[in-house]
């Protein structure tokens, strides 16, 4: 094979590669749009009036996740299944966002940590790599960490809205999450950086709990909650 032939072969490969990336980018843009819509919807739980409407907001968000599922289904068709990690960086960000949103919805509904299987189910994707388009562990964990900072905000705002028991429940939840994350041996990667922020969320929520307990505002609920 002559040098020009070789280079035109490589060029062919590169332009095919670029076309795939272009296609992926388009779908990812739509996904980001939907993710923003869900976020806007869920943001309203921070409003004083939003606290009563949490179940209805969650139901609406669940509806929007249907659109996410179709878009993700479309994304799957844009590239060969076994080359997931070749294009991973294109959807990594949005997938982490979506994992966060799914985790947040599940927390608001049941006050429990969403499992990786549940997130995958909500997004209509797989958990195991061998089965196709899947949710990477690190992306799932990143999503959970985003939720932690959202919850620290929610703790503050629920006090403002007069709900004094919620911060205590959030505090328990976050502490459990923190001890979970402490089990992991993280490398010096983006996930580790994000995890380093978790301690500030923990601190923030502890401050809220402290403020409540020093004023005796949390007492009656705590007594009820511990039983």
């Amino acid at each position, binding site marked *: *094979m002559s040098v020009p032939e*070789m280079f035109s072969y490589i060029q062919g490969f590169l332009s095919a590669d670029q076309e795939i990336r272009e296609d992926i980018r388009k779908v990812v843009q739509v996904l980001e749009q939907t993710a923003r819509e869900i976020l806007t919807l869920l943001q309203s739980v921070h409003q004083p009036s939003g606290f009563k409407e949490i179940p209805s907001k969650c139901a609406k968000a669940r509806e929007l996740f249907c659109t996410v599922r179709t878009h993700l289904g479309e994304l799957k068709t844009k590239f060969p299944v076994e080359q997931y990690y*070749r294009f*991973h960086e294109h959807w990594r960000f949005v997938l982490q966002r979506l994992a966060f949103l799914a985790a947040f919805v599940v927390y608001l509904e049941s006050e429990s940590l969403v499992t990786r299987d549940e997130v995958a189910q909500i997004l209509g994707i797989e958990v195991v790599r061998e089965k196709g388009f899947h949710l990477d562990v690190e992306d799932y*964990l990143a999503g959970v960490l985003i939720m932690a900072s959202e919850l620290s905000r929610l703790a503050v705002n629920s006090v403002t809205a007069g709900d004094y028991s919620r911060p205590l429940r959030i505090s328990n939840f976050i502490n*459990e999450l923190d001890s979970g994350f402490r089990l*992991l041996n993280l490398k010096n990667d983006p996930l580790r950086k994000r995890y380093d922020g978790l301690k500030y969320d923990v601190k923030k929520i*502890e401050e809220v709990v402290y403020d409540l307990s020093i004023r005796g505002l949390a007492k009656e609920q705590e007594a009820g909650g511990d039983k």
Partner: protein
Amino acid sequence: MSKREGEGCPRMKTTQKTDDRDTGANLTSPVIAAFKVFQQDLDTKHDKHERLVKLSRDITIESKRTIFLLHRVTSVPDVEEVLNEADLKLDGVRLKIRLIAEELRGEDLYQYHRAFTPGIQEYVEAVSFHHFIRHRTLISLEEINTKLVFIKEPEAKDAPEGQQPMGTTQVLTFQVTPTDYLLGVADLTGELMRICISSVGNGDMDTPFQVSMFLRQIHDGFSYIGNTGPYEVSKKLHTLRQSLSKVEDACYTLKVRGSEIPKHMLADVFSSKTAMMDQDEGVA
């Protein structure tokens, strides 16, 4: 490590109380159980990554040594002997690549690509340099890849997997990606420049012209790809230009002054010239 502990300390104090409660009641909680699974997943992944990085470093070192060995062809009478020695060394490198292929069996190549790409690029550089010295042509991607097909002995550790019946040979392949190939070839041009300059010192009047022809073709190829390639490629294009102009200047000097200066003195002209260029490189 110490940094992490340092960061962790203040928080440890503040959560001491809740910690006690955690160890008491929550160790069996679903959250902790789930994170134990994640811990295993991540550790397996990181271990594999580390092993690949180590292999990649070994490949880089061995390939670099092969390239140094190949640079000796300008000063020894028996070129073939050096080439055969280099072949043996490259066989050793291929054994390492085989280990990478084994690590990657059933994995997504691109998931760990970052771990071993430097080694593979260096290997491409060495193998294409070797090929150029022997055949004066550019090795193709297929030629590289066909050498990275490994036949696995039947009774090896596959048996537990159960899929392959005993006695059949199993084929293990490693595919160099076009991008790695491209970057390796870009590095090759630097070696070609060096061999061109040093061959003049040896009184070899043909090699410089062959190299400059070849380099020009590669340069044209890279300009054809231009910026459609990945970012690293366009970065290397700049160095490629420098190498090309050095080689072209050498050929020019040979043409102009070759007729004037007696052969035995040409070497001196070029040795001072290379010294000057090395300084250039140091600055750049």
